[in-house]
C-alpha cells in the first residue's frame, strides 16, 4: 500500500475531470493533506514532506499524507484559498515560514492578515548566514562591517530573493547593524540560492546572504568562507566553527522557521488534535534524524505559543519594514 499516495494523486484527477471542480476529493476520504504554496521542489515542498514523512514514519497518521502544490503570489493564492474556501477543513495544514511572515507584514498576501488563520506549529528552523568567497579580504564579520560602513556602495550583496523578501531582509539587517541605510546597499536579486552561490564563486557579487543549511555542501570545499551565522547560538556538528553575528558584536538574528497553519474556522478539537500530534512527533528520535537529513535545526513551537510567536514576529517585521523604507 506504499504506492497509495502517488497513485491516488494521479489516478483521481486523471479519471475524473470532476477534480477540476472540487480540489478536495481526497481530503473528504479522511486523509490528511498538506498544501505547499509553491511549485514542487522548493522550501515549502520540503516543509510539507517533513510533516508527511515524519507523521507516517512514526505512525501518527494511519494513511499517507497528501502533499499538493498551490504556487502563485508568493503564497498569497494558498493563503486566500484557505481563508476563503477551505476555512474549516480539519485535515488540511499549509506550509509556511519566516518568508510568509515577512510577506504578511508587508501586506503582500492580499486582504487577509496574520490574525486570520490558526497558526499550528513549527517543526524546524534554519538560520541566515553571511558568506564570502574564500579569497575575500574579510576574515571575520567585523572587517566586512567596517569596510561596508566606510563605503557602502563598494560591496555588492546578492541572494535568491527579491527586494523586500526574507533573503533581502538579511542583507538589510546587516547593513542596518553597521549604520548603513539598506537603501544605500547594492543588492542583486537572483533566482534561488544556487544562482547566487554561482555568482559569488564567479566573483560577480562579494557577499551572499544565504541560509546555513544550503551551505553545508560547501563547508569543506574550501571555496567559501562563512563569516557569521545569524542564529542566537552556535549550531552543532559541521557548523560548530561558524561564529554567530552576536558573538562578533553585531545584534543580527535571522531564524527561518518551517511551520504550518490551518484554516480560520477549524474547530478547537481538530486544532488540538494536530497540536498533540506535532508535540508527540517532535519528541520522537526518528523525527530528529529526518529533520537533520533535511538540513533543519531543532525548533519545536506548537499551539498557542506558536500563534503568539508568529503574530509578534509579523508586528516586528512591520516595524522593520518601516525602518528600512519598504513601507510608509
Amino acid at each position, binding site marked *: 500500500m506504499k504506492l497509495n499516495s502517488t497513485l491516488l494523486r494521479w489516478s483521481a484527477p486523471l479519471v475524473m475531470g470532476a477534480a477540476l471542480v472540487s480540489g478536495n476529493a481526497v481530503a473528504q476520504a479522511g486523509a490528511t493533506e498538506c498544501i505547499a504554496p509553491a511549485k514542487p521542489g522548493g522550501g515549502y515542498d520540503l516543509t510539507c514532506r517533513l510533516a508527511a514523512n515524519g507523521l507516517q514514519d512514526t505512525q501518527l497518521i494511519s494513511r*499517507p499524507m497528501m*502533499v499538493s502544490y498551490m504556487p*502563485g503570489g508568493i503564497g*498569497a493564492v494558498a493563503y486566500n484559498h484557505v481563508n476563503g474556501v477551505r476555512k474549516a477543513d480539519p485535515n488540511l495544514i499549509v506550509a509556511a515560514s519566516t518568508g510568509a511572515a515577512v510577506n504578511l507584514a508587508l501586506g503582500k498576501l492580499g486582504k487577509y492578515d496574520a490574525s486570520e488563520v490558526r497558526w499550528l506549529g513549527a517543526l524546524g528552523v534554519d538560520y541566515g548566514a553571511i558568506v564570502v568567497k574564500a579569497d575575500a579580504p574579510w576574515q571575520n564579520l567585523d572587517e566586512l562591517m567596517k569596510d561596508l560602513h566606510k563605503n557602502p556602495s563598494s560591496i555588492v550583496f546578492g541572494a535568491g530573493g527579491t527586494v523586500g523578501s526574507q533573503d533581502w531582509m538579511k542583507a538589510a539587517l546587516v547593513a542596518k547593524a553597521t549604520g548603513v541605510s539598506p537603501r544605500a546597499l547594492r543588492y542583486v536579486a537572483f533566482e534561488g540560492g*544556487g544562482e547566487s*552561490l*554561482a555568482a559569488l564563486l564567479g566573483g560577480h557579487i562579494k557577499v551572499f546572504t544565504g541560509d546555513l543549511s544550503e551551505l553545508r555542501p560547501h563547508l569543506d570545499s574550501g571555496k567559501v568562507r562563512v563569516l557569521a551565522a545569524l542564529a542566537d547560538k552556535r549550531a552543532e556538528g559541521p557548523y560548530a566553527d561558524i561564529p554567530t553575528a552576536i558573538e562578533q558584536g553585531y545584534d543580527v538574528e535571522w531564524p527561518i522557521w518551517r511551520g504550518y497553519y490551518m484554516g480560520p474556522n477549524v474547530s478547537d478539537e481538530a486544532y488540538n488534535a494536530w497540536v498533540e500530534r506535532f508535540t508527540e512527533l517532535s519528541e520522537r528520535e526518528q523525527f530528529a534524524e529526518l529533520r537533520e537529513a533535511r538540513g533543519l535545526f531543532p525548533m519545536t513551537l506548537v499551539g498557542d505559543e506558536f500563534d503568539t510567536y508568529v503574530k509578534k514576529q509579523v508586528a516586528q517585521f512591520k516595524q522593520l519594514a518601516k525602518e528600512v523604507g519598504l513601507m510608509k
Partner: protein
Amino acid sequence: MFDFLIHGFEVALTPMNLGLAFMGALLGTLFGALPGIGPINGIAILMPLAYTLGLPAESALILLAGVYTGAEYGGRMSSILLNVPGDAGAVMTTLDGHPLAKKGLAGPALGLSAISSFVGATIAIIGLTLFAPLLAEVAVLFGPAEFFGLMVFAFASMSVMMGNDPIKTGIGAVLGILVAMVGVDSGTGVMRYTMGMPELYDGIDFVVMIIGLFAISEILLMLEHAHNKNVDDTMPPLGRVMVQLKEVVACRWAMLRSGLIGFVVGVLPGTGASVAGAVSYTTEKRLSDKDNTFGTGDMRGLAAPESGNNAAAVGSFVPMLTLGIPGSGTTAVLLGALMLYNITPGPMMFTERPDVAGGLIASLYIGNLVLLALNLPLAGLFAKVLTIPRWVLVPGIAILAFVGVYQLHSDLMAIYLMLVIGVVGYLLRKLGFSLAPIILGYVLGGLMEDNLRRALSISGGDMGILWQSGISIGLWIAAALLLMAPLIMAKLLSGKPAAQAQA
C-alpha cells in the same frame, strides 16, 4: 582517474538498478510526452515514492536521472504529432517536426528525433565525464553581464527567423517579452501588470503559456475549420514508418553541432533546454538552410533542437555534480533528493561517495541507450496516434494538460489564464503571426531583463559593466557579426542573386 566510472558501472549494472533505469526512462518519456507534466513535476512526484520504497541513494538517483533524460526524449512527441510542445525544451521541435508529420512522415520524424536526442545526450555525457571539473570553473565566470551578452547573441541569432514578415516576428517577440514582465519585479519588489491579482504575482507559468498558446489555439483553429468546411482536418495517411539511414547521415552535422551548443548552454547555470533548443535551431538554420526549407519540414531543423535540448539536460548535471549548484530547475529538485539522503553534492562527492557520482554518470550512459532502444521501435507505434481523428486527439491532450496544470496549481485561475492566452494565440495565428518568436521572446526576454537589471545593480547603474569582461566582448562581437553577415555576404556575392545570400 576514471576509477569512479568503472565503479559506477558496477553499481549501475546490478539488476535492480538496470530495472530502475529502464523504469525511469519509460516514465520520463511518458511525463515528457504529456504536455503540462514536465521533468520537474515527474521527479517531484517520484521522489517521495523512491524515499518511501526505501531505495538506496544511488538507486533513487538512477531512477530520477532516468526520468529527467527520458522527459527530454518524450517532449518531442506531441511537438511532432500535435504541434503542441510536450515540455519547455521542445518548443523549437514543433517548427519542422510538425510539418514533417503533416507530410505523412511522422514515423521517420519520431525516429530521427530519437536518434538526434541520443547523439546530443551522448556528446554531453562524454563531455560531462571528461571535462566536468574544468567546465564548472568556466561556468561561474558567466555573471549577469555575460548572460546579458549571451541573450543579445541569442536574439541576434533569432534574426534569421524573421522570414517573410520581420515586423510580425518583431511584434511577436515583444509580446513574449511583455508576458515575461508580469509579476514581482525582482530588482525592486514592485508588482508589474498584475492588476491586483495575487495569482499573477509570480508571473505567468511556462506550462500555462505553452498549453494556452499552442494547444488551445490549435483546438480553436480546428473548430473553425470544422464549422466552415464541415469536414475534419485529418492528417495525411501515414507513409513509411522507419527513418532511413541516409536521412540520419544527412543530419549528422546538425546533430553534432547542436549537441555541442546544447551542452555548453546546459552547463551554464540559469539557462536550460529551452534556450539550448532555440540557439541550436537558429544556428543550424543560419549554417545550413541554403534553400530556405527550414520551417517546412526539414529534417535538419528537427534534428538540431532535439540534439540540443537533450545535451542541455545532461549538461546541467555539470555544475550540480562539481559545484553543488543546480544548472536547471530539474537538477535543483535532484539536488534536494540528494540532500534527503544526507549526501552533499559538490567536488567532494567524487571522492566521498564515488558510488553515487559514478553510478549516476554510468546510469546516464545506460539510460540513454535504453531510451534509444525504447524510442526507435516505438516511433511507428506512436505515429499511429495520428490515425485517431484530430477532433478527439487534440481536445483529449488538452484535457490531460488541464488536469496536469490544475494538479500543479490547485487553482482555477491558471486554467482561465490558459484559456485567455489560447484565444489570444488563436487571434494571432489568424493574423499570420508565428508562435515561436513569442515563446522565444518570453523565455529569452525574461532572462535578458533579469540579467541586465542584475548587472546594473552590481555596477550601480554604470552601463560599462556590460562590456567589461573578455567573454562579454566576445559575445557582443559575435552578435554584431551575425547581424552584419547577410549584408557583407550580399556585398561580396553581388554578382549572384542577393536574395539567396540573405536567406
